[in-house]
């Protein structure tokens, strides 16, 4: 029963994000996609509320946190003043290809569920720190600095971004105890949410069958990598959920402008608050999108603010907590910045290749790449996912190069997971439009005519 209650706590996420997603400007999104986006926004707001509570020294309690998060969602509507209502999408009967694609996505989600329940996909990091911290923080009703400060708990990575631990602690407070199996099942839950919400997001420009096929490819890729690289219960699947939804929004021409950029920015905030590598993803995707879309300098500044301000706010709150409690001041542990060990370069390349080929014989990375090549000439906007993939890969290699000792073992543990967004971006790239639409460019300024 506690296990079900633990998972049921996540039902609150779309409810918390609903005050924002109920805005008429989001009427263009199909209802399922809207609910999934509301859950993504709700996750960001709940995590931010919990961080602000603990920063202020207030105890975590379910109702005040949910109310504060819903208030943040409602307050975000302030930035949508003047946004026009958008027509609801036309619903069309799914053809055979679309039904087949949906069935594949469903099977991939069931495979993730089966692998998790079968004890074949659980991350050891769930026990090492994601779950251990959430359990402790739920008991302490806040981030337990004494627990993090203990020398024997050094491996807990006190500075890691707070979102996943916060959400797990939230569910733990709701259920009364931490439930390890339920935490592992968040892998299938997040993948299921992606399978439900992504086709509707992609349908903006594509036909229903193309959107469903692209979505199925993304979901099957992540199911495959997630099961084989053991991500169940860690922060990788939540990160991938937020990154995929945000990138799909960014590529949707009719979703630029104040409403689209704000929602993308909130999902970016969730990604950057989930894992360290979420931040370079956010910065790269935002920078490339701002350059590719065009517009005046003023329009780009406004768009940049919407895309990046939620992330800045969330991380500022987290680092303010770290600094004020003298717990951490930056993302540490990766070596001295720019203290590059170039002698490890060839070994790092070989270790990454080995890690990727050891995961489903490399197929979850190669197949999306081949699908992208097979799709023919890509639209110009494909620069956004492909540039982000290149920047993220560069960041990961750059990070591995900072390790003073041979990082081969670290790469063997992490590369299959942390390179998963690259495969997802390959799968999304053929979906990118050829040019930023007129609406997109106007949207950069957020002033609909």
């Amino acid at each position, binding site marked *: 029963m506690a296990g079900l209650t633990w998972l049921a706590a996540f039902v609150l996420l779309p409810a918390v994000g609903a005050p924002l997603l109920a805005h008429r400007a989001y009427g263009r999104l199909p209802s399922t996609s809207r609910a999934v986006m509301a859950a993504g926004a709700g996750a960001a707001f709940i995590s931010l509320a919990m961080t602000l509570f603990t920063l202020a020294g207030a105890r975590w309690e379910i109702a005040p946190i949910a109310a504060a998060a819903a208030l943040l969602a409602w307050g975000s509507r302030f930035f949508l003043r003047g946004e026009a209502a958008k027509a609801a999408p036309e619903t069309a009967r799914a053809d055979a*290809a679309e039904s087949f694609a949906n069935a594949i996505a469903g099977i991939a989600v069931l*495979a993730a569920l089966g692998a998790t329940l079968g004890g074949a996909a659980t991350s050891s990091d769930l026990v090492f720190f994601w779950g*251990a911290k959430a359990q402790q923080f739920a008991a302490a009703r806040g981030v337990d600095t004494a627990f993090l400060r203990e020398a024997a708990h050094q491996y807990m990575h006190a500075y890691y971004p707070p979102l996943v631990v916060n959400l797990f602690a939230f569910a733990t407070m709701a259920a009364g105890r931490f439930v390890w199996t339920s935490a592992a099942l968040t892998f299938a839950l997040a993948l299921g949410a992606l399978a439900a919400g992504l086709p509707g997001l992609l349908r903006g420009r594509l036909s229903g069958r*193309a959107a469903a096929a692209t979505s199925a490819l993304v979901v099957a890729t992540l199911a495959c990598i997630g099961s084989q690289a053991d991500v169940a219960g860690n922060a990788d699947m939540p990160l991938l959920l937020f990154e995929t939804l945000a990138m799909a929004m960014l590529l949707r021409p009719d979703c630029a402008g104040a409403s689209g950029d704000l929602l993308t920015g909130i999902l970016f905030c969730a990604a950057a608050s989930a894992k360290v590598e979420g931040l370079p993803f956010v910065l790269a995707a935002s920078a490339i999108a701002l350059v590719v879309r065009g517009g005046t300098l003023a329009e780009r500044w406004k768009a940049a603010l919407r895309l990046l301000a939620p992330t800045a706010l969330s991380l500022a709150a987290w680092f303010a907590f770290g600094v004020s409690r003298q717990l951490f001041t930056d993302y540490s542990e990766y070596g001295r910045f720019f203290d590059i060990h170039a002698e490890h370069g060839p070994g790092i390349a070989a270790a990454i290749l080995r890690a990727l080929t050891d995961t489903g014989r490399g197929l979850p990375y190669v197949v999306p790449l081949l699908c992208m090549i097979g799709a023919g000439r890509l639209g110009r906007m494909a620069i956004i996912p492909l540039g982000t993939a290149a920047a993220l890969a560069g960041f990961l290699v750059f990070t591995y190069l900072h390790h003073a000792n041979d990082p081969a073992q670290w790469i063997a543990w992490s590369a299959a997971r942390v390179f998963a967004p690259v495969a997802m971006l390959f799968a999304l790239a053929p979906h990118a439009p050829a040019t930023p639409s007129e609406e997109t460019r106007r949207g950069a300024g957020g002033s609909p005519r």
Partner: protein
Amino acid sequence: MLRRRRTPDPVAIALLGSALLAALALWHVPWRQGLVRPRTLYDNSSARAVAPVYALLTAAAIGIPQGASVVVRAEPPDAMMETWYHRFAVALLPGRRALPSAFYGAFTAPELWRDAEYLVVVGPKPRPEPGRLLLETPDGTVWLRSQH
């Protein structure tokens, strides 16, 4: 007569790719065990080496009271495994004081943990017996140390 160059259908390519990867994901499901729930979340994962300590600590949690100190050792002693075991004890025995017998692959000084009230041993029963046996499973034993 000019023949129009055929281009592959991107939808068909994506469907083919997704079907292949979904099949690969299905292949990873541990079908052989049927509908029987595995003993632990790690039985069939790449971290299956930690399944015994997960099972043992989950069972031991009932018998080790809140606030008690506990150390988890491997039999025979193994600094790397005991590093992981300490981390599992912190997570799976909340409210108890888990003392590390090893840290980052190196044994800690025995003074750090030798006063632990409870000893969990993953592997064969230790000789001589370190106290009163509280629990014995195929994965190991749980002891109330004799000095207490």
